[in-house]
């Protein structure tokens, strides 16, 4: 029997209540420090650097099973999907030519007007590896981190539109706060008339809202909202949401618009992190 498991004959330690009080105090101080200052991010990054590899090992069998399931797909399905992808690639190529022409024209106009050229973007492909069990915010973890050049604050999109923003970066992973989070918002512009508004999450998994909308604002159900690029974080022109309905004010002077995000917020596995292009 090891001495640790035996009750000591003479008690020479603090009472349970005192120890409990001390631990409570330490916890409260920790929380206060963590919420006010970002001093604890080092501790957080350290613990994550230890846990992340273990987690990868845990997730591996599940991914393997999913992959093994994919191995037994029918030949017909593969051929059909290949045809569809080829067709889609053709269409995208055609669109890309148009885009190149527009881009060069845009650059020419920029030089004519004496404006600096719009910054280019560098895309980092990432995969969502898990959703966090967090009752306060809506976050997912993706498998690209500071080792791959990801920086906190960058926008994250999928093939349909904006889905969120990188909020914390760890060595091999980073945390993306989704657009649907209550504290997350994006400056947008209505595509139809260029009206600039702010769209925010409302804590629901599938809806966004425009909180303070002028009573007579010209916004209709069906309008598409694109990022306006005014904040310097989100580049202009990324599709964000479609307006579902306008709620007229009842108790406050502002109207409210309920929108539906266009990007599959938190649904698709593959996302793209937009990084500013490094200039030579």
């Amino acid at each position: 029997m090891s001495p640790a498991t035996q009750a000591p004959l003479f008690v020479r330690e603090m009472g349970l209540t005192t120890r409990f009080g001390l631990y409570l105090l330490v916890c409260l101080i920790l929380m206060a420090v963590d919420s006010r200052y970002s001093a604890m991010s080092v501790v957080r990054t350290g613990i994550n650097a230890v846990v992340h590899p273990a987690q990868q090992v845990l997730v591996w069998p599940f991914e393997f099973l999913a992959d093994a399931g994919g191995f037994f797909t029918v030949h017909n399905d593969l051929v059909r999907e290949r045809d569809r992808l080829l067709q889609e690639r053709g269409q995208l190529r055609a669109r890309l030519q148009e885009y190149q022409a527009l881009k060069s024209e845009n650059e020419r106009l920029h030089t004519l007007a004496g404006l600096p050229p719009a910054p280019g973007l560098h895309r980092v492909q990432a995969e969502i590896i898990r959703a966090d069990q967090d009752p306060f915010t809506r976050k997912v973890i993706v498998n690209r981190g500071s080792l791959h050049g990801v920086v906190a604050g960058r926008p994250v999109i999928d093939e349909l539109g904006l889905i969120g923003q990188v909020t914390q970066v760890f060595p091999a992973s980073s945390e993306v706060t989704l657009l649907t989070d209550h504290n997350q918002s994006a400056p947008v512009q209505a595509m139809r008339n260029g009206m600039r508004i702010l769209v925010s999450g409302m804590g629901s998994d599938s809806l966004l809202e425009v909180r303070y909308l002028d009573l007579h604002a010209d916004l209709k159900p069906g309008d598409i909202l694109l990022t306006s690029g005014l904040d310097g974080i989100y580049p202009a022109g990324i599709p964000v949401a479609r307006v579902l309905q306008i709620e007229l004010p009842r108790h406050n002077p502002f109207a409210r618009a309920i929108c539906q995000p266009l990007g599959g917020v938190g649904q698709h596995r593959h996302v793209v992190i937009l990084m500013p292009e490094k200039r030579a």
Partner: protein
Amino acid sequence: MNGIGKSMSNGSKPLIPQGEELARPPTRLMVLISLVAAFMLTLLPWPKAALWLVPDLGLLVLVYWNIHAPRLAALGVAFALGLAMDATHGLLLGLHALSYCVVTFLVLMLRRRLAFFTLKGQAAHLAPLFLLQEALVLLLGLAYGHSQVDWRYLAAGIVTAALWVPACLVLDRLTGRPARLDRVTGG
């Protein structure tokens, strides 16, 4: 059973370990491995729609050891486990640590009483504590500046309590403690 009951009731600690503890004393390694394993289970890729129902297995194992090996797993272990939870889930550091410390403290106060109940009776005692833990996390989050809380997460406390009986049976088997069939049948 009677021997333990007598020695506990007259208030003095027995000098020699008796009964259950004599059969197979819990070791530090056992506690550590079971805690880490339970913690890792909560990190598995659970389906996103059911995240709020995922039971807190780490807390379950912690409470088990609080009852059966209070000298090996007490407030310090609760604090460390809580910190690990907070850091991996990206929450405010100290949120889970504090709530785990509260639960551990209450369980340590209750453990003499709990020893005389069947597993179901123990689950009934522990359910309010697990609920309290979830509620503490949510309320502290609110107090420390989160503007919105997903109250569905309270359900995890109930799920954790419901898992108490199977978890105890599994842990008893794994750690080689003597079977407590007499208690399960209420005898």
